[in-house]
């Protein structure tokens, strides 16, 4: 059993959803983001999405866009992020790690090269936001050759037939986008999302994780009743970008994630 399977199996046995936290690497700087990820793991995150900033993040809302801009300005690069990822995965061998970025960043580094590198440094998967089914072959092939999960996405706009094809070819887990739009914190139509997740789950052999717009423990709690995992990104970054000393923001982030971790439990 691979590491992601183990994580989802363990969560299932514990009668809860996996807690997946997205972090903008290099925000506000490399050292601070390493602390932030460390904090997230210690507070109960099961899987970390390591966001590699891109200058033109067309699928992101304002919170992650601003974080990306600051991270790039403060010198975040893919090689530095990979070094950080290696340290984190050594310290946390039970935690899942997914590299999360846009295709240009990965293509520029080299698709074969990144897919060889990630398993070597203990990472489990890769997600390219702008890589739909139609274009995935060039990344799926080296992923497969190196035992790396290529995380696929489905959205509420994805027709069921297409979603079934995506899920049948999926590896690791499927990222189900809660809303048609960009990342961010917002009020979700939770009932519709729950219904959509139920349909997906009925057709999927891999775990389904729900993300986009989850901004509090209540939303996480509701979606955890059906999703195999819940993904929180912008709400976490928003706390990290708040006022006050970074150590205080880190503490607020720790409390937020610990609260989420309690709320991903399923009701009997």
């Amino acid at each position, binding site marked *: 059993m691979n590491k992601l399977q183990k994580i989802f199996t363990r969560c299932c046995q514990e009668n809860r959803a996996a807690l997946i936290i997205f972090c903008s690497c290099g925000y506000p700087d490399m050292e601070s983001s390493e602390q932030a990820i460390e904090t997230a793991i210690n507070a109960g995150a099961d899987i970390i999405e390591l966001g590699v900033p*891109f*200058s*033109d*993040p*067309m*699928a992101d*809302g304002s919170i992650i*866009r*601003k974080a990306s*801009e600051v991270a*790039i300005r403060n010198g975040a*690069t*893919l090689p530095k992020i990979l070094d950080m990822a290696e340290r984190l995965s050594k310290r946390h061998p039970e935690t899942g790690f997914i590299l999360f970025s*846009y*295709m*240009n*960043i*990965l*293509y*520029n*580094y080299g698709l074969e090269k990144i897919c060889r590198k990630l398993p070597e440094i203990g990472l489990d998967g890769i997600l390219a*936001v*702008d*890589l*739909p*089914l*139609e*274009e995935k072959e060039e990344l799926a092939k080296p992923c497969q050759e190196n035992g790396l999960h290529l995380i*696929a*996405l*489905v*959205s*509420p*706009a*994805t*027709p069921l037939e*297409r979603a079934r094809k*995506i899920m049948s070819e999926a590896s690791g887990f499927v990222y189900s*986008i809660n*809303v*048609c*739009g*960009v990342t961010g914190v917002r009020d979700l139509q939770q009932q519709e999302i729950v219904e959509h997740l139920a349909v997906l789950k009925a057709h999927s052999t891999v775990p389904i994780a729900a993300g986009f717009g989850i901004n509090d423990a209540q939303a996480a709690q509701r979606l955890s009743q059906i999703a195999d995992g819940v993904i929180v990104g912008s709400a976490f970054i928003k706390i990290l970008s708040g006022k006050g000393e970074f150590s205080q923001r880190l503490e607020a982030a720790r409390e937020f994630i610990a609260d989420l971790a309690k709320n991903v439990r399923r009701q009997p």
Partner: protein
Amino acid sequence: MMNTHYGIYGGQYVAETLMPALTELEQAYLEAKRDPEFHKEYQTLLKNYVGRESPLYFAKRLSQSLGGASIYLKREDLNHTGAHKINNTIGQALLAKHMGKTRLIAETGAGMHGVATATVAALLGMECEVFMGSLDVQRQAVNVERMQTLGAKVNPVSEGSATLKDAMNEALRDWTARFKDTFYLIGTVAGPYPYPMLVRDFQSVIGEEARQQCLDQTGRLPDQVIACVGGGSNAMGIFAGFCDYPEVRLVGVEAGGKGLDSGEHAASICGGKVGILHGCKTYLLQNADGQITDTYSVSAGLDYPGVGPEHSFMADSGEAHYVTVNDDDAIAAFDLLARYEGIIPALESAHALAYAIRIAADFPATTTFLVNLSGRGDKDMDTVRKFKQEQGA
């Protein structure tokens, strides 16, 4: 599904949420292509509203002064709204209407595509929002007013470099959330498939007309077809008429800005490397980390860090040749055409003209160059004045 790539270039590198929107667009376009009524509507508007066909004009005094090749100008500057952009916006807006969309969105840099989109939105009674970098909003105040006069809402985008690429990011984000009622009207042959195909098709009227006009006026095909390339829609439009004639040399002229070595340019093919942006794989200006870099050109319409994927393919295959012209040569060509022919060209078009001027003397008068005069230069008077002041000329 048609072939969505040009060799390794093109494709549909978008978030999953946009895929159904692209599929819907492709199907609607392929249906419209087979629909004689759609063609009739499009052709009628091109004739009666845009004023096509646009003339082919022999620039006799300019050619004689250079003492070389005969330079012919395809006068897209005489179109309604002053540039080739309207050919595409009419086609796409009609398509939007057929699809039952009620709202048009567009990105714009210098504002010409924004004006052309606002124009067709007014013509067809559709809602219109244009995304424009906040820097460009300041630099192109007149075009902002034109769009507003035409009833469009202009949304300034202040993130990133606050220019065209950021406006395109924001338009894509808007479309991701609202594609049910909204049609994204892309202004150039870039973006995800099917945009490069449909923008090329709607602009190919330039090349089709020009080929026939060359045959009528000179009795033969031109030796070289020269057009400026930012995203590359006017170039792809005029090249389209000559792709089946390998004896015709196709030349795309990129913005060399202050020179390729200076790093301050917008020459994606001549000075960039392959990457993925705004839904397609193509040549891009980017740094060693894969971050898209700021571009520079005196001509705002060429100021884009990417280029249409078919151009990237044609550059690699040798079907077309790509060169650069720097700011100062473009400005000199701008002046020269005004003085010798009484035509003030857009600074974008002046780049194509400058290349023709550069090589004209190497050829006899029996050689013909066809230059796409893609737009008129009224919008550039301020820019040219400031450029000359800075140069101390």
